[in-house]
Structures are given as C-alpha cells and as structure tokens.
C-alpha cells in the first residue's frame, strides 16, 4: 500500500547534473520535493539550471507531487518521509501545511538568509507574515492563488447576461439560474455553477458572509455561528432548490468547465493553463459579496528541512527557486499568481484572462485559508460533513452541530499534544 502511494505521489523523479562551469566547486547532492504540474516542473528545472551555473558540482534530484488529493495527503506523505529518516533537503509546500510542520519543528528558520538576500521586498508583506511562526520565517513564498469566479464568456453572451463586475449573492444566483439549461424532459444539460467540492474553493462563500468554519486564530470551531448555517443553506439551495449545480462529487468539474458544460466555477489561477489549451473564452470576476467582498488566499513556499546535511546550499537552492526569473516563468506558464508583484506585471501574465489584473487588485481583500496544525484532520471533518449536507444526507442544522463537535474534539486532541510537548 505504502509503496503504491509513494509511486502515485512521485509522478516523476529527475536528476539534473552539473552544466556550465564557474564559481563554486562545492560537491554535494540535494533532494528537492516540489509540487504542481508540468508548468511547475519546467520552471523548477530552469531554476535548477540557474543554480547549477553557480554550483556546477551540486546534483539536484527533483520529485514533484501533483497534490491530486489535497494538502492533507501531502502532509501525511512528508511526515512519513521525516519519520522514515528519508526527508528531502528542500520542500515546496503550501500554507495549509505550514503550521503542522512548524509545530513539529521540521524546518529551519530562513530569517538570516532573507535578511542577507536583497529583493524579497518585492513580495507582498502579507505572504511573509503567514509563512512565519512565533516570530520566525520558515518558508519563502512563491506563487499564490485566491479563489475567484471563473466564467465562460460565451455562455454569458448566449444567456444575454452582462459580464459580472462587483456582484452580490442574489445577482450571482439569478445569473446561475439563467445559465442553467435543461432539455425537454427537464434534465440539466448545462449547469450554471459548480458548488465546490474542495475545502479551499468553498471558503469565499463563508468569508463574504463575514464568517468562517473556524475561529479567527484557528484554535476552535466556529460552525455554530448562524452565518455558517446561512451560507451552507445558500449553497444547498443552489443545488436542491434552483438546481443550478450538481451535488458535489468526488471529482472537480474542471473538464466540464473547459467543455462549456458548466458556466461558472470557483477556482484559482491554476486553471488558466488548461483553459488556454482548450481555447476557452473565459474571464475571472470577484466573488459575489454579501457582507463584504473578501475571498480566500492560499500560497506555496519553499522551506529547508532540519535534517538536511547541506542547509546553506539548500537555502541557496530556495533562493534560485524563488528568484524573479522563476517567478515570472511560473506566472506565465500558469499555476499560480507570482508572489513577486514585478513578475505578475509582465505582459504575458496580464494577457489572459482579460481581467488578469484582478488577481493582484483583489489581494488586499483576501484572508488565508484556515490552516491550523491539525489541518489535515480539520479538512477531512469539514468536507465529510459538508458533502453530506450538500447531498441532503443530513440537515444543515444537524450537520453544523456534528461538524462543530468533531472539530472541537480534534482541537482538544491537538491541545493535549501541545501540552505533552
């Protein structure tokens, strides 16, 4: 089982040998665990080539994880590597996992390296704020993603709708109704919206209603807030009253969006890569607001593992991986919005979708995805009950109570652990 999982996780493992000759003659092997798709792998490869120009005798081995089962599974994967004494030197990971890793002291602080390397001021300060724990920075941010409404412009035109700008929940709901098509027998042939089936995508609905499933400092459940139930009811009604969305299933509907079978989906910048390939006439819009227009943000970062024998070299590698060139390339290839503002101002990044500038414009209105140290547990608990509520298996009232109880039990266990430590 374990070997099967490892096999699935490590989609590809490539070794890069030294290239050009100059500078440093240090000889070492570094192992890098990155995440993402082809675009990220390409950008990472190029970053390593640049790193190798300075350190021609350092061999960097790369593994890349597509994160197809969410960050909880990635945490499991990384922890098992540390437990097995087989940790990589450098890890790419995301905010969802930061607390879990920091709590366990698996990464080294990078403050010294950041201080002596000019150029990190180009990053939005909020990104560094969330990659820090107890005053120390353990991860250097890379690309980020905030959830926006991605919509099919052609289907909007067909339905006689104006492109959305700043809209409300009700306006969104009306649009979704108009964008849903049924055949003569009443069966849906085109959905207006996909009610999200992942924790990250669904967060803006809570945030725009001024609430969240967890409390502000991520230490307890906030499920009993009536606004949480109100939000869930709204999503539930999109599925069961308006019938503009299917029940969230196991797989995301990205392909159906690219095929024009779903008019709107809540996603981040990573879908642009495929939308371009599918020649989809799409754009992004701000999430519909109720009490505010806040949306959720998640971002990736690189850290150096405590068990690395070449920590200084590993930091240099992180430097190459977070450089402006790498960021620009990642932004242009798709997969995330570059953490460096300069990289997101490039014409290639702004070329598509038409409102690409909205990504940075909405940054001040973003709140990070709740990422407590028991994230992988919290995500499972929330999603299991959320799907049950959306599938009408349990009532919203019962569902929020059950989620609340389970979340608080999980936080109690976490607290007991922290005390034991």
């Amino acid at each position, binding site marked *: 089982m374990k070997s099967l999982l490892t096999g699935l996780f490590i989609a590809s493992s490539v070794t890069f040998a030294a290239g050009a000759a100059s500078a440093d003659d240090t000889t070492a092997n570094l192992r890098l665990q990155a995440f993402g798709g082809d675009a990220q792998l390409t950008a990472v490869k190029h970053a390593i080539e640049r790193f190798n120009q300075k350190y021609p005798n350092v061999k960097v081995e790369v593994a890349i994880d597509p994160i197809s089962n969410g960050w*909880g*599974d990635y945490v*499991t994967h990384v*922890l*098992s590597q*540390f*437990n097995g004494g087989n940790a990589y030197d450098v890890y790419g990971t995301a905010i969802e996992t930061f607390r879990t890793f920091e*709590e*366990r*002291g*698996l990464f080294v602080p990078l403050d010294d390296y950041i201080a002596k390397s000019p150029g990190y001021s180009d990053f939005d300060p909020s990104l560094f704020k969330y990659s820090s724990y107890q005053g120390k920075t353990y991860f250097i941010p890379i690309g980020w993603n905030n959830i926006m409404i991605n919509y099919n412009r052609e289907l909007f035109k067909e339905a006689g709708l104006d492109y959305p700008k700043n809209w409300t929940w009700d306006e969104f709901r009306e649009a979704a109704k108009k964008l849903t098509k049924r055949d003569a*027998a009443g*069966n*849906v042939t085109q*959905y207006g919206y996909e009610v999200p089936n992942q924790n990250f995508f669904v967060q803006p609905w809570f945030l725009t209603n001024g609430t969240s499933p967890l409390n502000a400092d991520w230490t307890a459940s906030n499920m009993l807030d009536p606004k949480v139930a109100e939000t869930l009811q709204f999503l539930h009604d999109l599925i069961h009253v308006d019938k503009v969305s*299917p*029940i969230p*299933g*196991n*797989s995301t509907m990205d392909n*159906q969006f690219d095929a024009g*079978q779903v008019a709107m989906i809540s996603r981040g910048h990573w879908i642009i890569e495929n939308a371009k390939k599918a020649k989809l006439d799409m754009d992004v819009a701000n999430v519909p607001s109720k009490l505010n227009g806040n949306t959720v943000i998640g971002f990736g970062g690189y850290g150096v593992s405590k068990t690395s024998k070449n920590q200084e070299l590993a930091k240099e590698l992180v430097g190459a991986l977070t450089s402006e060139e790498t960021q620009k390339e990642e932004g242009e290839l798709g997969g995330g919005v570059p953490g460096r503002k300069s990289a997101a101002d490039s014409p290639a990044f702004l070329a598509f979708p038409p409102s690409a500038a909205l990504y940075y414009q909405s940054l001040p209105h973003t709140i990070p995805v709740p990422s407590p140290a*028991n994230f*992988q*547990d919290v995500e*499972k608990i929330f999603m*299991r*009950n959320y*799907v*049950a509520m959306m*599938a*009408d*298996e*349990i009532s919203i009232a019962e569902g929020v109570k059950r989620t609340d109880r*389970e979340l608080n039990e*999980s936080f109690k*266990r976490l607290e*007991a*652990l922290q005390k*034991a*430590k």
Partner: protein
Amino acid sequence: MRAAVMRQASDLQRAQALSGYLFLLPSFALYLAFVLAPVVVTCILSFAYFDPMLGSRWVGLDNYIRFFTDDRSQQIFWNTLRFTIFAVTGNICVGMLFALALDRKMPAIFLYLFRLAFFLPVIIAAAFVSIVWSYFYGDDLGVINYYVIRLGLSPVHWLTSSRYAMMSIVIMDVWKNAGFFMIIFIAALQGVPKTLIEAAVMDGASYWRRFFRIVLPWISPVVFFAIVYASIGALQVFESVVILTRGGPGDATRSMSIYIVESAFDSFEIGYAASIAVVMTIVILAITIVQFLASRAWVRH
C-alpha cells in the same frame, strides 16, 4: 556398538534438523518481521497515544472506549458488515450461476471465451475498475444515467446518495469478483461424479433437485471455502470505496479499513487506528469461527 549407532543417528538427526531449521529460517524471519511483529506492535499501540515526533503516552483502554462509544465508528462498523453480507451473497450466487451455466457441453472456443470474459475483471486492479465505474455511475454525465434518462426515468444518484451508494459499490464488487468464484466452482462442479448425476437423471430428478440434493452437498466444502474467503476480502474493502465515494456521502460507505488509514495517517492517531485494527481483526476472527461452527451443520466432507 549400539550406542555408537544411536549417536550416529542422533548426529544425522541433528544435522537434518539443523538444515530443516535453516530452510525454515528465511520464511520464518519474514513472517516474524512482516506479520507477527506488526501484529504485536499494533496490539501494544492500541493502548497508547503514539506520535513519533510529538511524544507518546499510555492511555489504557481509552482508544477502545472511544471506538465503542463514538457514533461514527458504530456506523462504519455496520457499513462494513452490511457490505460484507451483500458482497459475499452476490459474489457467491453470481459466481455459482456463471459456473452452472458454463458447466455443460459446448464448443471449446465458446467455453474458453466465456470463462475468459467472466474472469477478466478479476485480474484488473480494483483501482482501475473503480475509476471506470465512477464514470458509469456519474450523476449527470454517467453512462448508466444516460440510459436511465433515455428510458424516461429520473436519474439515480448512484454515488451521491446514501440510499444507493453502498449498493453501487456492491454491484461493482460483484461484477469484478464473481468471475473468481466462478472458476473455483467450475473446478468443483467438474469433480462431481458423473455416475451420481446419471443415476439421478434415470430416477427422474429435475435439474434444480439434482443441484440441491447432489451437486451442492458434494461441492459444499468448496462453497464453504469460497464464503470464508469472500468474507475476509469483503471485510477489508478499501480501494473501490476510496475511489468511488471516498467513504461518503457523509460516512455512508466508509469501511473499517478506510477508517483505520484515515485515523492513522490523516489524524495521526496511530493508537486509535491500532485499536480499530485490533477490533477489526477480532471481528474477522469471530465471523470466521461462526462460519466454521455453522459449516458443521451443512458441509459434508
């Protein structure tokens, strides 16, 4: 002289015994390292809170108390039993029907073709089968619902409603595994003495009468083996559920083995997961014992 012979024999015996043990050693060492040791460690862990990085402590029976008082684990426990009952019944019955259908004179080419066709799903990994079936079962774009809608019926929520999700998984499981039991039953059916059947035919016994009075009792040990084997497999159902429903909606299709993995590697509650594993082992053991006891009444050796 006699004593010398004795001593010689004893040396030989000892040498033989030694080489015997040496031959045993590799398999015993592997058994010790990969079967016995994990079992013992699991039992010990089930009384602890274990975290390799944040520290561990003994918690006595807490893990077991939690399992038996938590309503989630109750539901998951019954899910597993429910799946086992339906899947075993389905696999054995369908496998037997296929075997009976193929246990007759027909051109060899058809015989091999049908056997191959029914057996083929068995050799495909459950993971691939599940992925393909998830396309069949899709709510709106699924193959099955396409025909359901064509027939003028409203689409069925195969995987997104707790009313059908478990049955959908059972159907897939039977489709995949019935061929295995078919092969076993065909072999058993061919061992039934022709003379007995011919005598019964002469006496004018009908097909089903012959089946229930002669064939089934004759192959009952094989059927018994098949039931035990199918039950143990069904109690451990994992990948098909994970891929089709991830245990959902809610906990509607979550099985104990999924719960073990999730507790151990998502919640990092190794101790709690170990206690579930111990409970599951005891349940499998108990069910097998019950089957053995019941078999005395109907299995004829």
